[in-house]
């Protein structure tokens, strides 16, 4: 169900290793819980986070959720399309709905995240 090539956090973020940069977004489960997303507040390019720091906010009509940085790093890019089209997260949470990219990431932190199988299991137990 959840893409095999990604890693996942318990806060329902996913991370993709793009060779150098790490791309972060929220999972389909998180997007479904929120409902139609109406607004995304992204970090600034250049901002630095430690693992599990609050990095972004996603809002729907009935909820607002923090997005935590699943790994530590520095923001090198943000998905500006989400400004006008926050619904991209609902349509394609793993592709068009990507939120920000990090560099200077600790590879050990990345590997400590759940793989797809572990995340699927985690979801079943919720």
């Amino acid at each position, binding site marked *: 169900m959840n893409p095999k090539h990604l890693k996942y956090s318990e806060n329902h973020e996913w991370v993709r290793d793009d060779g150098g940069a790490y791309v972060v977004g929220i999972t389909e489960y998180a997007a479904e819980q929120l409902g139609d997303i109406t*607004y995304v*507040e992204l970090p600034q390019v250049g901002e630095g986070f430690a693992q599990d720091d609050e990095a972004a906010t996603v809002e729907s*009509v*009935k*909820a*607002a959720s923090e997005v935590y940085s699943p790994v530590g790093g520095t923001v090198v890019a943000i998905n500006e399309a989400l400004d006008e089209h926050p619904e991209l997260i609902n349509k394609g949470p793993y592709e068009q709905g990507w939120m920000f990219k990090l560099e200077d990431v600790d590879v050990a932190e990345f590997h400590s995240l759940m793989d797809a199988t572990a995340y699927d299991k985690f979801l079943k137990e919720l």
Partner: protein
Amino acid sequence: MLAAIGVESLETLFDPIPEGLRLRSWDVPPGLSEMAVCDLIHRLASRNVTSHASFLGGGYYDHFIPAAVDALSSRSEFYTAYTPYQPECAQGSLQSIYEYQSVICRLTGLECANASLYDGGTAVFEAATMSIRLTNRNRVVCHPSLNPIYRQILDTHAAHLPIEIVDGDEPQDAACVIVQNPAFLGDVADLTTLAERCHAAGALLVVSFYPISLGLLKTPGEMGADIAVAEGQSLGLPLGFGGPYLGIMAARRRHIRKMPGRIAAATHDGQGRKGYVLTLQAREQHIRREKAMSNICSNEALCALRALIYLCLMGKEGLGEVAAHCHSKAEYLKSRLGRSGSRIRILNEGPTFNEFAVQLPRDASYVADHMLGRGFLAGLPLSAVGAGGPNDLLIAVTEKRTRDDLDDFAAALEAETCS
């Protein structure tokens, strides 16, 4: 009903309350008939004096309220309705909120407004925390023009927040500078330069305004303000010994997501019919809890309706006329009081709208007391609110004061200060 529930007596329903904690006795009087309550309230009301010709302002003003404001806002479909969380059966509430937000924007020259806050003082506090959220700075600068009561309210609410509140007009490193226009003592200023200085320093300009004055005066929007707040009592709300009043807040469009309070927005239903809903609720306490923009839940919705109705009744020309009357009558009184040979000194150096400060040759409270006997509420002795010396008095004039009132008042005040 007891049978359906399966209990023998009403008492059983209170079993969950431990026996030792039940009320044993209290000193609450027996109930009275409606007739007796009516009489009681009437007698309490009669122990107050409202017959004086009033020159008392200080943030709250004796303006004329057209009869239709009461008639319409006392329709029970408005006043016995709840917050419009089920929009399909609350389009009356929601459309009126949308229209209210619209007239506030048109009045202030700004681009968005909320559905109301509690009052002018707490609105200043909300503007301060909103500025802090927008700039990520924690210093709030209060200009001396601000109503001292608003400043007290701000201090009380901010007491345990990591906010630094300072006096002055220096925007350096500040989240905002909060200015009142007209000032508490009545002076009217052009804040355009201050707005520019604020923006150059990365700070916001918050203007606390007087709604009636915007029938005439340059608006917060025109002057470059980011956030405008006000006490809306002057828009069709009775003086009511302190409430309910109306906290007004308007702002630039780009700040809307950090604005507290409810906001109504236009949309449509499945059949394409136009309708209104509360929006951006994710900012509010029932969703965001401790991270909400504010803790506000109940607001002053019915008072906002009154303000909307008032502004619609007065209309484009009417509000300007009320403002012009207030100003001209105040200027007339000012000229009577401040004429050469008079021992009453006008303290304001520049233009004022409808309120001005005078220095009397003797104690202002003493004079005010004697003016009561002559049938006048002479104004606000300023030392009582820490805004002037013992002989200083703040005088307000509204459209309700006739020329005779003004002449008689001037004569009485002169008589009281010459003897």
